[in-house]
């Protein structure tokens, strides 16, 4: 039986979890754990994604996220129900919690798998280099701990019956338990990770000031501005705007890459975009040859012209 961790933040589902459930379904009967009663309301929709039973774990140490409490609770539940696999999405939290479970059990953990083949030894394919290299690996362990690479597989509903919901009371001690003690909201509403349109700039933008035309273009559709690692390292944009392997992963409807060459480090951060439009002076740049649409030319002329054209059509 497969135990899937439903990632949520005080009751708000991380939708990427549903992608992990699609992988879990192929491996066997899927049960899910929701850590903290704040997430209890999420149980209802999980049946549609093939979950037969949802364990809602409740404890005061689960009132907010904490890697130790989430890991220890999941470990206890996996043991209690005889799970063969514990699986989560390969997000920051998913990978962190799984690593804490693995460390507690001194068991292997495979991060960011894209396919799993059960057998005597389990075969997995996982991504390295943020997705630009695949590794085939064998896992030998009584309990397999896996995270699923985000955006490797689409989430889909299978129309299953409503899942059975059962409570789980973990035994937790607050000694040495790390958890969130405070939080700050930096941005309300649309963020880089969730924006439907991302207008991103790289070396070709040339300066911090020049990003203003990208801001203006993004404003036309309620989009947000992202950037490449070069732009961050030059101090043109804050690191929180960085798209790529060591920055934010995005999957917008349209990704407009302005003056970005498209090094693999950047590409893996935006390859899940539905459509990519490249604006670049170099017709041979990887971003141009891999994009759905490309405009070869000077972004400092093209971007303002696009803004003007949009305004004209809108009257």
């Amino acid at each position, binding site marked *: 039986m497969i135990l899937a961790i439903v990632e949520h933040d005080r009751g708000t589902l991380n939708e990427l979890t549903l992608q992990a459930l699609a992988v879990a379904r192929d491996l066997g009967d899927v049960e899910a754990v929701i850590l903290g009663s704040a997430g209890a309301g999420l149980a209802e929709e999980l049946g549609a994604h093939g979950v037969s039973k949802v364990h809602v774990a409740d404890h005061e140490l689960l009132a907010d996220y904490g890697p130790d409490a989430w890991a220890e609770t999941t470990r206890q539940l996996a043991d209690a129900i005889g799970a063969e696999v514990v699986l989560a999405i390969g997000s920051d939290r998913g990978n962190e919690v799984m690593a804490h479970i693995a460390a507690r059990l001194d068991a292997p953990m495979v991060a960011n798998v894209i396919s799993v083949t059960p057998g005597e030894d389990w075969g997995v394919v996982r991504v390295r280099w943020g997705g630009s290299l695949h590794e085939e690996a064998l896992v*030998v362990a009584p309990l397999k701990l896996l995270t699923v690479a985000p955006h490797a597989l689409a989430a889909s509903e299978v129309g299953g019956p409503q899942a059975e919901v059962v409570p789980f009371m973990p035994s937790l001690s607050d000694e040495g338990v790390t958890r969130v003690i405070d939080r700050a909201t930096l941005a309300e509403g649309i963020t880089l990770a969730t924006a439907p349109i991302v207008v991103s700039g790289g070396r070709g933008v040339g300066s911090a000031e020049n990003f203003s035309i990208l801001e203006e273009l993004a404003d036309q559709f309620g989009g947000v501005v992202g950037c490449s690692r070069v732009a961050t390292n030059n101090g043109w944009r804050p690191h929180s705007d960085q798209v790529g392997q060591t920055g934010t992963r995005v999957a917008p409807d349209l990704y407009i890459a302005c003056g970005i060459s498209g090094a693999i480090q950047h590409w893996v951060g935006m390859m899940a975009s539905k459509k990519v439009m490249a604006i670049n002076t170099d017709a041979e740049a990887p971003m141009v040859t891999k994009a759905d649409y490309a405009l070869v030319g000077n972004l400092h002329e093209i971007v303002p012209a696009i803004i003007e054209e949009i305004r004209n059509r809108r009257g």
Partner: protein
Amino acid sequence: MRILVCIKRVPAPGARIVVEPDGQTIDTANLGFTISPHEECAVEAAVQLVEQHGGNVTVMTLGPEGAEEQLRHAVSVGATDAILIPAGERDWDPQATARALTDAIGDAESDGAFDLILFGNESADSGGYQVGVRVSRALGRPMVNGIKGIEIGKGVVTLRRETDGGSELYELPLPAVVGVKEGITLPRYPTLRGRLASKKADVRTFEAGEQPGGQSMVALANPPEQVKQTVMLTDAAAAVDVMEELGLL
């Protein structure tokens, strides 16, 4: 305060990674190497903490002999001690890596514990997301990953982690372990004095036996190239046509 930073030698990000025909290693002939980006920032964060609070920074790596280059780079930007755990050219699995690091840390702490041990959030190449957590568990110290802000208080460390649209704060008692993310600060360039110091620095070696875990690599492969028929747009109006077709206007 004493800070240890565990780093990894990886090919410079952005390079095209080509797998050798045997599927076991990557072609390194044309690759430059660097400290994995999150860890490069961890080294800088550690040096800044020591500049602020006093103390010293030790760097440690498990890797091939060539990883001495990355240890010396860390010395050139402010670390004072460097420890290499020789592991040959092949990656050790995450459990084996964590066990060796734990042993080496135990040895390095014979004259007192590190107040803070920093790891990168994940290595740029293998991306296992676990070595730091395993070491923290083995040492019985708390750890949080994904950290972009570190502040030292009295016997505690306050850590800031960015989330989508906000940030979370954690407070851990010292000694503690922290997984650092790129963006915590910008790495500095080595000074001339730093370069000279790094040449003279004594890189200590710690021999650790390989104790493999339950995950073993079978083969590496480059994913199939995406073949995309790029539509070349002639002007801004054509670009806006596309945006209209996609229903964005």
